[in-house]
């Protein structure tokens, strides 16, 4: 969902600076936030350095009544396009028996990493498998999702089921400019279905564990609705609380796809995986590593690996972050590349609670 809006960055910045909260602020305003992601990049293939305004994200979050809330996140990539990353109404406390309903466009609860906005990743970009299966922005789509918090005592069990427009299975889009003659399909896709179950356990006062399974099913090609695709994801996260401001977070996810044959492509079963470990060593410093691999979505015989390390510094709380990443990408065919990335991330607006 893209809107071309030249010069939007400057215009919107003016609006939000003037809307900053005041001591006598009107309490009906939603929380406004702006996150800027500035990057420097060098790679050993071109041996050239570049710098870019990778993304500006603008968020509006607030209750719409005592039982529902709404969130809108706009992403500006470069200076030539605004994208609606998420725009959703959540009926949080409207239904009995632990049910909730989300309507609108959202990052799907497909694994644990997908619903997280990419600027929150210590390793900077979405895992390679997300990019390959869903595009640069991960799995996001418009639809309705029913969630349920099970009324059990010993563990936390949650389940979700949803129906989405189906764009997500078409492979998403890239932030790169489309090639000449290449156009996005205007045809409405078939509706797709999603589901997820996850289980949270506190093994001890300092160790907790969240594991889940997700599935997405539909038709990836609007022209051939009978050709179906199913993508499943298994995920796990362990968090070890090592003391005030110190913790170790280990994430692992694996994706399994099955795509029916179409007139233009054979049946494929692409796979992908990702794992990371992030040690928050103090309030200001964190470091870690990651590795992952993915088959090409259209050709499951072609595989690419990526691995690397990262270090982060919170200059002033979490409102000013600097991250450095070195990563190596090795495709089966062709030369690999080593990249050095530097990121400066700033955030304006209220601090949002940290998700698990």
């Amino acid at each position, binding site marked *: 969902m893209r809107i071309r809006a030249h010069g939007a960055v400057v215009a919107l910045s003016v609006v939000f600076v003037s809307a900053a909260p005041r001591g006598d602020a009107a309490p009906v305003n939603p929380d406004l936030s702006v996150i800027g992601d500035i990057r420097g990049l060098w790679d050993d293939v071109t041996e050239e350095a570049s710098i870019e305004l990778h993304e500006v994200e603008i968020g509006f979050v607030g209750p719409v009544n005592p039982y529902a809330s709404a969130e809108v996140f706009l992403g500006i990539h470069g200076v030539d396009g605004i994208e609606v990353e998420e725009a959703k109404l959540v009926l949080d406390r409207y239904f009995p028996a632990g049910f909730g309903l989300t309507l609108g466009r959202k990052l799907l609860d497909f694994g644990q990493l997908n619903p997280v906005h990419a600027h929150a990743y210590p390793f900077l970009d979405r895992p390679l498998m997300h990019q390959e299966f869903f595009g640069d922005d991960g799995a996001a789509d418009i639809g309705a999702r029913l969630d349920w918090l099970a009324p059990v005592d010993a563990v936390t069990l*949650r389940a979700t089921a949803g129906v989405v427009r189906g764009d997500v299975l078409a492979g998403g889009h890239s932030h790169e400019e489309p090639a000449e003659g290449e156009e996005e399909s205007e045809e409405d896709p078939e509706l797709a279905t999603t589901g997820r179950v996850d289980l949270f356990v506190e093994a001890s006062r300092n160790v*907790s564990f969240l594991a889940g399974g997700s599935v997405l099913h539909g038709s990836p090609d609007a022209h051939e609705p009978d050709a179906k695709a199913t993508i499943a994801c298994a995920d796990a996260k362990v968090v070890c609380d090592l003391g005030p401001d110190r913790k170790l977070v280990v994430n692992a996810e694996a994706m399994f796809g099955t795509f029916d044959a179409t007139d233009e492509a054979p049946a494929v079963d692409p796979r992908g995986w990702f794992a990371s470990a992030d040690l928050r060593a103090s309030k200001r410093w964190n470091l870690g590593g990651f590795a992952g691999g993915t088959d090409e979505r259209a050709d499951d015989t072609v595989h690419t690996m990526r691995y690397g390390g990262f270090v982060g510094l919170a200059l002033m709380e979490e409102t000013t972050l600097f991250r450095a990443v070195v990563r190596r990408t090795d495709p089966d065919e062709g030369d690999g590349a080593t990249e050095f990335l530097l990121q400066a991330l700033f955030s304006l607006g209220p601090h949002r*609670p*940290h998700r698990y």
Partner: protein
Amino acid sequence: MNPFLASLLAAILFAASSTPAAPLRVVAATNDLGAIARAVGGDAIELDVVARPDRDPHSLPVLPSTMRATARADMYLEIGLSLDLWSREIIRGSRNRKLTVVDCSRVITPLEVPVGRVDASQGDVHPEGNPHYWLDPANAVLVAELLAREFAAIDAERATDYEARMTAFRAEIGRRLPEWSERLRGRRFVEFHRSWVYLAARFEMEIAGRVEPLPGIPPSAHHLADLASMIRETNVPIAIRDAYHDPSAMEFLARETGVSTAVLPTSCGEPTPESFLAHFDEIAAVLGAPAAEARP
């Protein structure tokens, strides 16, 4: 009617009428609110607490288990004043439409309410005022009175019990207040964060300086040097921090000036009235100790 059946029916009716009402399920954002809730609710409430007392309440990760506890709760107690923004996330995630949410800050008079424009250049400032109000025992009494009313509103059967316990808690704080006051009045100290303004205001203490130049902003070397000079020149006897604050600044001040330093938690260790009162005893012992008097 068969005499046996009549007896059985009578026994069932008696048992039903004498079965105690189910406990009120309460989730408190912090141990301090939990302790006050326990003081008012006694055994008639089932209590869960979200924040660990040794973790910074300004930035708490939202665990799914806290949503589960809140999902079955009757009431959630918020600190308010934008301290526990994570509480809203927990309440939303609980999917509990029957939950009564009580913002405990609504009965206190906030201190340090900023005037005029508020933005991040002033640090992590709270637009509605300083949120560490539970560190004034008089505010704890106000919160206890509020909770007695709120508990009674959804559990009228035990209203007199709540009122009686609240009165006893208020009386106990009133009984201990003079002793705390005697030990703390006029004492001077350096704090790490703007945590102790309510305590200082209640007991006419002086906060001589702060490690953080602005709320939530780590100190520069220049700021610490100025603070050390001030401590030396005005003989500030003690500097305190919470367990989750960076110890290196305090170590620097102790090394440079000889000032006593102490880890003094801003939250009580357990969500019980005894722990809440003992926390003020500990505060009085640390800040009111002879060593904490102005050095010659």
